[in-house]
């Protein structure tokens, strides 16, 4: 269900009326899906092919109360320093709100189940999977996405470090990696121990490569650019240590 979008005071509408490249891709994908469905339904009756059981079919799903129509609710989000108010289907995740309703497509959808970290953003300053939060649940929160890390054309030090160290190949996981590493450095600066921290009583965390690997394990990179990702994070960690602690 399309959301009703209200721009902030400065009138920054993010939806253009022209068909963009990504919308063209979406239209192509939809057409393909329609074709596939048509082919597949032709197989159902009398076929020896495995029968597709739709999600939530009565035979296997938990008994639930009757379905209700989609519900709309108003939500206010402070995203990268600007206030956005919109009315949105309660089912919409923060991730889909950012990408589909507000055009913050820097945040990526990978697995959509909290397993890959591609959707990592900062919610009230703490890193989180945007796919596992509903927009209505984070109503009133401050969200920082990859678009909000740079100051105009001036990259955030972590963005620059990923460039300098070539911390990516295809780049799809990169916004999540960068947001996650920024959140991770704040956690370390606040003295958060990790699974590989030898002594729980330490007050100051030193980020060895092992520490960086463990703390970044919620961000997968299928290209396996991990060595360079660690080089980038290590550089920023060393540069900011004096400032943060």
């Amino acid at each position: 269900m399309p959301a009703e979008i209200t721009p902030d005071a400065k009138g920054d509408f993010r939806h253009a009326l022209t068909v963009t490249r990504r919308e063209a891709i979406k239209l192509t994908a939809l057409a393909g899906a329609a074709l596939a469905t048509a082919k597949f339904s032709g197989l159902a009756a009398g076929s020896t092919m495995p029968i597709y059981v739709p999600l939530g079919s009565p035979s296997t799903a938990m008994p639930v109360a009757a379905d209700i129509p989609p519900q709309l609710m108003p939500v206010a989000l402070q995203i990268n320093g600007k206030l956005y108010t919109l009315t949105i289907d309660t089912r919409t995740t923060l991730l889909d709100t950012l990408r589909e309703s507000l055009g913050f497509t820097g945040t990526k959808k990978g697995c959509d189940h909290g397993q890959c970290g591609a959707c990592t953003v900062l919610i009230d300053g703490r890193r989180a999977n945007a796919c596992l939060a509903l927009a209505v649940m984070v109503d009133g929160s401050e969200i920082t996405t990859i678009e909000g890390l740079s100051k105009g054309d001036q990259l955030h030090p972590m963005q620059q470090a990923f460039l300098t160290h070539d911390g990516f190949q295809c780049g799809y996981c990169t916004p999540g990696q960068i947001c996650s590493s920024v959140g991770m450095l704040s956690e370390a600066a606040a003295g958060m121990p990790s699974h590989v921290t030898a002594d729980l009583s330490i007050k100051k965390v030193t980020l060895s490569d092992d520490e960086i690997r463990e703390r970044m394990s919620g961000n997968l990179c299928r290209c396996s650019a991990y060595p360079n990702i660690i080089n980038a994070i290590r550089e920023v960690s060393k540069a900011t240590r004096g400032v943060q602690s």
Partner: protein
Amino acid sequence: MKAFTYERPLTLNAAVLSAQQPGAKFIAGGTNLLDLMKLQIEAPIHLIDISRLGMNTIERNADGGLRIGAMVRNADLAQDALVRADYGVLSRALLSGASGQLRNRATTGGNLLQRTRCNYFYDLTRPCNKRAPGSGCSAVGGFNRMNAILGVDGGGGASFGGSEARSGGNGSRRSADSRAEAGNICIAVHPSDMAVAMRALDAKVETIGVNGVTRVIPIADFHRLAGTTPNIETALLPGEIITAVTLPAPVRGQQIYRKIRDRASYAFALVSVAAVVNVVGGKIRSASIACGGVAHKPWRIASAEAALVGADVGADVRATRAFAASAAALLAGARGYGHNDFKISLLRRAVSATLAEASGRKSA
């Protein structure tokens, strides 16, 4: 995801009252429930967000113990100075679970209530007694590498929960299948690391229910074995909310959480062991051990701890014998289902190694 109405009540009593309507469900961190809702394994029609009702502090109790609010995030609990100082096994268990992102959202109460990650619970195209009671268990005879080896009794055959079984051929697996269909067997495991540490620490779960009635449930009674009703996982009544988890005053001793998994990080336990062992003068004065990844609830057996008391951990042979006796008591009645047979020997070794480490001996 099915459509639902959403509400953020202003008081706990309002939340409890609202939960009486059919199809209602509480949500806090959402890291497990939303995942399940996307797959329509859970399909609430009314979501009650309790994440802004306070219950987010960690305080010393009058008895010297700790009171952890149900909304305390996993990351904050792991980082808390009191927890790190006095309940290291809890901090370690939390840090071994999930990812940094998830620990920032997941709550203490929600962690206790998370549901199994059994592949077949997640696969709507396959029977699952937990998801659809009476439909059968696909894990018995299926890919059950992650599944339970202890505490299984599906009511489908007297031999369940009997003596330790070897992997067996297709024949034995087929008979297991037929029994699985006859009863309501479930070999899912509880996925929480936090709950295993809390079990070793004798935590208690505080709740509020209808008409403001409060209860204190020992964690031993909070999670249930699957029995013949694997769809009922905890002692909570409809609409009852976890308000806090309390820990008794700190006990002396070494605290260890050992987790064994397929990846070095960000994976559920194959087996895990939480141990608190107090050694005085070279002998074990007290011990508590709870195991994860092996049963429908954190697994703790009193006789496994009794076997350790008085053990001379300075002497190689006697120490080894005591650790083995303890592991054997924990594993009494264990059986594998094929892919997970390895968990029996893995848990035995993990228990011995953890006890050795906690007793100040060189880890096995």
